[in-house]
């Protein structure tokens, strides 16, 4: 299938990536080439096959490991915020959201 300009706009919005008008044609063209590749899967008969989300599923016992719900980390807020584009008084700064 081929993407329409509306579909591309919708995907770009969901992905939070700005696609300029100048880029649109080239982006669509290459996305369509990739969609052509993955569309080959539509012809595969997978009736009765369970989706596989863990790569070892099926051959090895896979279980979700959960840890006890307790504090395991020390407070390193300052170190973590050192790389933030804008932080102040322990808070991350972003443009105003609520008027």
């Amino acid at each position, binding site marked *: 299938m081929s993407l329409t300009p509306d579909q591309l706009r919708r995907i770009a919005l969901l*992905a939070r990536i700005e696609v300029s008008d100048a880029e649109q044609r080239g982006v669509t063209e290459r996305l369509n080439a990739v*969609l052509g*590749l*993955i569309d080959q899967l539509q012809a595969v008969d997978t009736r009765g096959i369970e989706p*596989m989300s863990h790569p070892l599923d099926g051959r090895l016992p896979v279980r979700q490991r959960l840890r006890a719900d307790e504090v395991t980390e020390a407070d390193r807020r300052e170190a973590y915020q050192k790389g933030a*584009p804008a932080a102040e008084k322990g808070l991350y700064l972003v443009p105003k959201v609520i008027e």
Partner: protein
Amino acid sequence: MLNSTLSALGAALAAKQVSAVELTGLFLARIRALDGKLNAFITVDEEHSLAQARVADERRSHGAAGPLTGIPVAHKDIYCTRGLRTTCGSRMLAAYTSPYDAHVIERFDAAGAIQLGKTNMDEFAMGSSNETSHFGPVRNPWDTARVPGGSSGGSAAAVAARMAPAATGTDTGGSIRQPAALSGVSGLKPTYGVVSRYGMIAFASSLDQGGPLAKSAADLALLMNTMAGFDARDSTSLERPAEDYGRELNLNLAGLRIGLPKEYFGDGLEPDVRACVREATRWFEGQGAKMIEITLPNTALAVPVYYVIAPAEASSNLSRFDGVRYGHRAGEYADLAEMYRRTRAEGFGTEVKRRILIGTYVLSHGYYDAYYLQAQRARRLIAKDFAEAFARCDLIMGPTSPTTAFALGAKADDPVQMYLNDIFTIPAPLAGLPGLSIPCGFDATGLPVGLQIMGDYFAEAKMLGAAHRYQQATDWHLRAAREAPL
């Protein structure tokens, strides 16, 4: 010294023929001399490396040295390092320094290895040529007009040019094995869950696996003994007893059942690659191994399956890069939504954006079942192929890549051609299986060819044993790259 194996370097350190400071200095000088041409490193901090080397020498003088103490190791710039910036090959993280170390880095530090620098890579490990790096392409040390492979192209080129005796990499769809093949070095992608993903910047979490690149299989075994191990901070890390990856280096090849999948020797394989791989398998046959023709009938589905699953997982993983907590933030924006959109448009390169968009699409309402669930079902078919094959053979052999190193720019603008080139390396990670690549000859123009050896879950020691036996009888792996003479 530059062309020595890790065990030889370890012996020289132990015999006090060389100090860790001298050895580190030797490789730093080599990097200084060659990296202007090859661009294999993004960050080198000589003082940091030499300070670690002094500590290693001190440790040795106290009699507390292990096999890797004082050995310099280059790290793919996907592993978070507290002391060196971590860019993941992206503008998004061009100025990022991690507040913590990856588990793999902790393990090498604890072993007394020296961080030699951070190697160049395709942006967020998305690429097979190292051309998607924000820091420019890496050049192949055998022919600087060609790519080294990717995404761990900097690591492969660094080892090939003997700028580092060993390096770390990560493999999602071939990112250790393919650059190892194209650059003429040895590389291992372990079983999924063997090496912790903690602090390894995520691309596709159900596929990503760290592993080593080095000159020889014996060196890979030594590196695995340090890299592998349970880590509670990675939810898919496997709880298994520690193993010695070098325990089968003297593997008896007589009676070993080697599967040759017919799908790996079909059309599209360069004749020289076919000839080198065939000659290598004939060598194993000469040692008494039993060649078994097998079929992996769903091989052709691997690339389409991968290009649904990997972008889907990437679109989710990379949503964290929003210009709020770390990394790049756009300079101009009117509101929060625009800040996100512009930050991501500026911070990510073309290939990364393409994969995020594909992933977003296949996960979006109305397409999830047709693409994502269908790909996960087909993924199980691929895993079943391998399960049936490994009921009949101990190892599978074939080419790592259908071609030798291609020219810079040759596929850069054609994503589908680039993706299809990974046809032989994509299946193993979809099934979580280990695979390695070792040099097995050269094509008519003198470019290295890689032999891929795949094994069942946790068969790394056996795979390394087969590779080691081959490397004892051949010297492909010890040849110096043409444009980086010793």
